[in-house]
């Protein structure tokens, strides 16, 4: 179709653009103005002067960010927590989906899916409350231990326990959702494949290995590249709900670091520089992972 000139297009399709206008305004004001606002990373932002009029500071804040040991710590923690979640958490829904696929009782499948699915939609605040109930100094676990005269375990105040709580609660919250995604992928496998394998004498295990797994492989790859692509985002709401200064050593991630430096301490330029670094690495990761996935024959995410 011949394209109209800009103004003719606008006037011919003004009703279309009118429909999209609220969304366009939203994106301009709350996505692209803030994206421009990143320039404060290269300025000495002052509340009085605002984004535009604050004086330029060059790379001063960027250098300060890189030299900051707490930033370096947050960067390392972000990577470790994200990787830990992938290593411990990623296989769980795959295994659950494969197990559930072998269950013959339909009612059980339905029940399991319904219950597994709920935690994903609950707030991390709710989870934090439940975790406190169970694991804090006077919680259920330590209550039972106290009854047996065992010492109190500082689940939320000791680094390794804290990481364990992060990994396990992430699985409890997210595994059901991903299991349902895999189950949806499983339904697209042609049942004839199984029948053919049967008649060739393949065992259930062999069928799982050669039909079921390849059948969901593309979904597995898709969810894996999404996870690796968002490696820089280790779960802000989760950590923010659960951490405390005692566990900053292992638990402070880039998001929480940016929040504290910017919103709590008011060092906006420094925090914006740290946030910019996080966003850029995230962008590079997404592109890299997507390219690698495409090389291996996956359609990729974009």
């Amino acid at each position, binding site marked *: 179709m011949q394209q109209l000139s800009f103004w003719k297009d606008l006037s011919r399709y003004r009703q279309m653009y009118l429909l999209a206008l609220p969304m366009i305004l939203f994106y301009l*004001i709350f996505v692209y103005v803030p994206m421009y606002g990143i320039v404060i990373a290269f300025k000495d932002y002052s509340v009085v002067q605002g984004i535009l009029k604050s004086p330029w500071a060059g790379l001063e804040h960027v250098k300060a960010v890189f030299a900051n040991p707490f930033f370096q710590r947050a960067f390392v923690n972000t990577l470790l927590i994200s990787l830990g979640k992938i290593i411990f958490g990623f296989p769980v829904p795959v295994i659950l989906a494969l197990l559930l696929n072998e269950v013959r009782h339909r009612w059980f499948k339905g029940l399991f899916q319904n219950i597994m699915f709920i935690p994903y939609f609950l707030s991390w605040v709710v989870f934090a409350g*439940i975790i406190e109930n169970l694991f804090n100094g006077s919680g259920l676990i330590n209550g039972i231990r106290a009854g047996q005269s065992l010492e109190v375990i500082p689940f939320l105040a000791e680094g390794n326990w804290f990481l364990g709580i992060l990994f396990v609660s992430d699985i409890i919250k997210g595994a059901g959702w991903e299991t349902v995604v895999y189950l949806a992928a499983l339904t697209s496998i042609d049942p004839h494949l199984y029948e053919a394998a049967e008649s060739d004498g393949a065992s259930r295990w062999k069928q799982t290995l050669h039909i079921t797994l390849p059948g969901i492989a593309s979904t597995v790859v898709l969810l894996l590249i999404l996870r690796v692509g968002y490696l820089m985002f280790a779960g802000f709401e989760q950590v923010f709900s659960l951490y405390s200064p005692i566990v900053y050593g292992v638990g402070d991630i880039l998001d929480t670091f940016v929040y504290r430096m910017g919103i709590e301490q008011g060092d906006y330029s420094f925090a914006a520089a740290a946030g910019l670094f996080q966003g850029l690495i995230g962008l590079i990761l997404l592109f890299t992972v997507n390219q690698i996935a495409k090389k291996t024959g996956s359609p990729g995410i974009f």
Partner: protein
Amino acid sequence: MINRSPWYSQAVLIGILTLFMLAILFPFYYVITISVMPNENYVSKAFHLFPDGFTLDYYKLIFNDNRLVNALGVSVFVTVVGTFLNVVVTGAGAYVLGKTHLRLHRTLNLMVIIPLLFGGGIIPLYLVIRALNLTNSIWGLIIPFLCNSFYVILMKNFFASLPVELEEAAYIDGAKEIKTFSRIIVPLSKPIMAVMTLFYGVFHWNEFFWSGILVAPDKYPMMVLLRQLIRRVDTQMQVQLPGLIPMSLTSAIIIVMVVPIILISPFIQRFFIKGMVVGAVKA
């Protein structure tokens, strides 16, 4: 399937999966237990597997204490009004994104996709919201969160699956775009509208980070208050409600905030199973 696995392997399977289910269910059972037993009984013993006594006082308190009622009201308002605006703005915008004959078609689609790949972080957004004087107004919890790119794309994909003939017929009858959208497209889009209502609704109901930094304490939604109670950063609350140990009250609030989510989750799941969301992960 012909080659049936023996009964004992079924039993093992169901056993493993049931354990996983219990790991999810037990914590909720425990929270309910704490929320319905008198606080003095709760603190008298180290742990309880069953409620020791029974009371609904903490639930009554949620609906009687001014500050808690107010917070629940804010949560409901932001969820209802916010979600309505989310669905309207997202729906109308997503519809236009699918119109390839528009000159700005590519630009508009890029505009929506870019934020999925790169964001400036929370600081610039916070400064913009503050510069617009949206802080300290309940609208500050709604307007800056009108569209989510992932959901915009989901809706766009849904509209793309509708037959074009209906729209063409409407145009031939002389209907304009807005009328075509509201009379033809919207009635056909009830399933996606339902999904969007659930997703955006869950977002608003659960949101606590931005709510906690954007508005003054008298406009806090319940999630922010709950977080403060859990983290015991709020001394004001304890002064206001003397003699209460937060654990019983927070447990009751947790249950009140969880019940709506449990009620809607089967509906969300139904749409998931249909593969709607899975197919739309790819932008």
